[in-house]
């Protein structure tokens, strides 16, 4: 039986395989693009069904496992974000991908992510999760072995803990499909609540079980989402791959972790975790932990983003930080917070996707990645610059952009949930976001241009189309946040945020995006009139500036490209001494050394010593009474 879900799931990977097998320039791009367009088209076609609350399901049997997938209100939301980003990734890759290899693994992870989002049982969830890790690992491996291994090791840790979690669930319930497990958890939660009131009840999951499950799944999803302190793979992996692919990698793959936390920890086990783990200062303990992980991720990653010297690293750390916002919003534990988190999933995907496409274009045209090598590109790549500016405004949360709408919800949610210190972290994070986007603007686009960038051309058309799609979405969802909010309300089956297309009303606050936009435009028009009234301006080059009376020569590039935020680094020098990344690296080195010692002393290839080991083991077994 073939239905929409099948097509959405398997067309990308088939296209990827075809593109890889044929590997003819021109053909593979067309096939790849087609493979990315189809899921978007079918998902749009499925919209009326899922908006009504119905779902489209598909299942097949693999071995003794029954694998089932469903497109419903919840999964459609994540799937469409993934598919749109996948489409823009494909558009970018038309310009940047140089081989069928890239197409194969990029589209493989496309399929895998959609599989993760639509899976309805743990077997398919886990299989597609691993496929996703594998495909993205292969994409990084081609560019940088060290980065890919770091990603792989942490992913394996995540995968094992997920497997342990799934095994524990299976051992207690004997079920693997989400519906049955959810029911069991819901029932168990009720019983736990009752037993808390003095009734005696036999529980399926004990408190220890729940602590273990929480730890296992949080580790598994935290690795993928890049939550502190498991984020260390992200900056390297995001930067050491095809930047068009990073659009998808950072925009969507990290959301798989968020989806996991949302779906498994919250919707499936939320009530049970709440009753088993109890509360802390009136907040469910497990959510409180997630909120703080999010807050710390925001602050740490944003500080590190500010201090980066490499374009890709800056954006990678910023991605990690923005996912922190999502975790933080989930951690508030209110419907408003969940709405904010879901909205931020969308807006982070579209603005960060846009950022990575801009980066892909810049790297494609200049071949450089470090800030010190850039400068003055705004004149050479005006459209790319305009798109970069849209991304900057959205990320910095300037009203009326999509980034502001979702951030505003998160602010409201965090403050209303009475988590003042967590909310303080968002304020700090947003100032840091201002700081790093300005670094991006200044170093790339403004100032004196190094002479070797004089013949840089505008980005190629497919990339520009991809950027255009995301740029327009940023503005549309910014001015009409109601479009998204209306859909999110459907997920909760009640209006969490009221208002209309242009206006969001929460219990205590209100934001009218359209009126902000109109007043802003009016204000700019007034200021523009003042400008037009003044005398005509004479255009002068960037080298013709005030230099305290010193003559300016062309010999020195006067732009500050390196160590731009040095005073901040000085103010933070105490904290910068500690790094989780270095800690893990040292741990890795230590275990490598240990293995080396083992190899030299124990596994020395000498038959005589091996026979001695055998004799000792037999002796021990004999003493133990086994033999």
């Amino acid at each position, binding site marked *: 039986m073939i239905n929409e879900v099948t097509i959405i799931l398997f067309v990308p990977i088939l296209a990827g395989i075809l593109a890889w097998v044929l590997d003819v320039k021109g053909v593979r791009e067309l096939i790849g693009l087609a493979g990315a367009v189809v899921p978007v088209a079918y998902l749009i076609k499925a919209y009326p069904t899922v908006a009504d609350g119905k779902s489209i399901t598909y299942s097949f049997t693999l071995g003794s496992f029954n694998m089932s997938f469903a497109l419903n209100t919840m999964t459609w939301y994540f799937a469409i974000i993934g598919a749109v980003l996948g489409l823009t990734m494909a558009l970018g890759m038309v310009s940047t991908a140089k081989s069928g290899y890239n197409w194969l693994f990029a589209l493989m992870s496309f399929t895998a992510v959609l599989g993760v989002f639509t899976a309805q049982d743990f077997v398919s969830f886990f299989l597609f999760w691993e496929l996703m890790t594998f495909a993205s690992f292969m994409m990084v491996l081609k560019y940088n072995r060290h980065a890919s291994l770091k990603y792989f090791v942490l992913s394996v840790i995540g995968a094992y803990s997920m497997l342990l979690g799934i095994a524990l669930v299976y051992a207690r319930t004997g079920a693997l499909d989400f519906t049955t497990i959810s029911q069991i958890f819901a029932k168990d939660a009720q019983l736990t609540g009752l037993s808390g009131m003095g009734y005696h009840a036999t529980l399926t999951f004990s408190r220890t079980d729940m602590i273990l499950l929480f730890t296992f799944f949080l580790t598994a999803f935290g690795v993928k989402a890049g939550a502190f302190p498991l984020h260390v793979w992200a900056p390297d992996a995001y930067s050491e791959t095809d930047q068009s692919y990073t659009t998808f990698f950072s925009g969507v793959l990290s959301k798989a972790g968020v989806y996991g936390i949302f779906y498994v920890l919250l919707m499936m086990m939320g009530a049970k975790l709440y009753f088993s783990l109890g509360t802390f200062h009136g907040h469910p303990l497990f959510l409180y932990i997630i909120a703080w992980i999010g807050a710390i991720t925001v602050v740490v990653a944003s500080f590190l983003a500010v201090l980066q010297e490499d374009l890709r690293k800056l954006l990678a750390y910023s991605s990690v930080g923005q996912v922190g916002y999502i975790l933080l919003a989930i951690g508030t534990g209110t419907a408003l917070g969940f709405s904010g988190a879901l909205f931020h999933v969308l807006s982070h995907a579209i603005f960060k996707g846009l950022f990575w496409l801009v980066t892909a274009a810049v790297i494609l045209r200049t071949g450089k990645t470090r800030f010190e090598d850039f400068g003055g590109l705004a004149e050479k790549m005006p459209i790319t610059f305009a798109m970069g500016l849209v991304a900057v405004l959205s990320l910095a949360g*300037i009203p009326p952009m999509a980034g502001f709408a979702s951030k505003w919800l998160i602010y409201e949610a965090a403050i209303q949930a009475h988590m003042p210190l967590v909310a303080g972290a968002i304020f700090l994070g947003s100032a840091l976001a201002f*700081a790093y986007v*300005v670094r991006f603007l200044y170093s790339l686009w403004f100032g004196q241009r190094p002479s070797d960038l004089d013949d840089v051309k505008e980005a190629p058309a497919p990339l520009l189309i991809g950027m255009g799609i995301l740029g327009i979405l940023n503005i549309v969802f910014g001015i009409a946040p109601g479009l998204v909010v209306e859909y999110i309300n459907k997920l909760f089956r009640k209006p969490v945020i009221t208002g209309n297309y242009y206006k969001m009303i929460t219990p205590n606050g209100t934001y009218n995006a359209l009126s902000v936009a109109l007043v802003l435009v009016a204000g*700019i028009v007034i200021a523009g009139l003042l400008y037009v009234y003044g005398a005509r301006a004479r255009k002068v080059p960037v080298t013709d500036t005030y230099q305290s009376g010193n003559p300016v020569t062309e010999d020195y590039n006067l732009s500050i490209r390196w160590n731009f935020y040095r*005073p901040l680094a000085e103010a933070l020098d105490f904290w910068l001494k500690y790094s989780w990344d270095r800690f893990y690296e040292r741990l890795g080195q230590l275990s490598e050394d240990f293995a080396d010692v083992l190899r030299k002393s124990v596994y020395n290839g000498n038959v005589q010593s091996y026979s001695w080991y055998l004799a000792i083991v037999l002796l021990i077994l004999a003493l133990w009474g086994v033999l």
Partner: protein
Amino acid sequence: MNFDVRLVLEVIGMLLYATFMGFIFMGIERKAMARIQRRVGPPIYQPIIDTLKLLGKKESISHGFIYDFGPIFALGASITALLFLPLANFQLFSSNADLIVVAYLLEVPMLGIMLGAMSSGNPYSALGVQRGLLTMVAMQLPYGLAIIAIVQHFGTFKLGEIVALQQIHGWSILVPALLLAMIVFDIVFQAMIGLEPFDIITAPAEISMGPMLEYGGKQAAILFTQHAVQLFAETAFFAILFLGGASNLLELLIKQIAVLFIAIFVASIYPRFTIDQAAKFFWKWPTIIGIIAVLLTV
């Protein structure tokens, strides 16, 4: 959206009034500083004369589109921030925005100025941009904590309601926790309006006005106007949050001038911090006081 003539007239009137008063505030600032330093000082309307002179310049230079757009965007954003504040008995657009939106809108002009300054290619401007952003990073944590304390105490984000509640229960600063928040906010306020000890951004003696350095002629006039509007909006924001708002413009004006004078007195006593000193300072005392304030209002 139906066309509301009264609203339009109010908006135009308020813009003219705020711009004029903002310039007068700038004049007061210079005059008061001069009197403290036992100088005569310029007349109080001097900033208006300066701005008109700049607008009347025969020629100005430009480093490209973004260079011109930066100041225009900044002024536009300042005007937007102003119009979303409930100013005395004029509600303007304030029913459509809340504290977080206004707090953000008050920061947007900074981005406009930075955008223009960066595109000028002047290294002093770039230094000014860096200092400006780092000041912002430094001050944002205590600033956020002060705002959170306000929201937690009143249980609403709407500025109109915050004013109304203060008119019933007395000014915010009568509440001990919010008095702490006010102290924090006042320290941050010094940085927001760019006065000593946090005039790190412009620092005339070090980087010759930083971001504004390259600007002359009409762009400088726009930046002056922007500063005037911003000064008016920020003092009004202070009065709304902590001093009970106002029921008429005169009351608002008195409160604004009171806020301004505190800032001027602080500014004329203290020398300038370097940026890392400012960061360390902001992350120490104001943050600690801010945390106490938010924990008291939970």
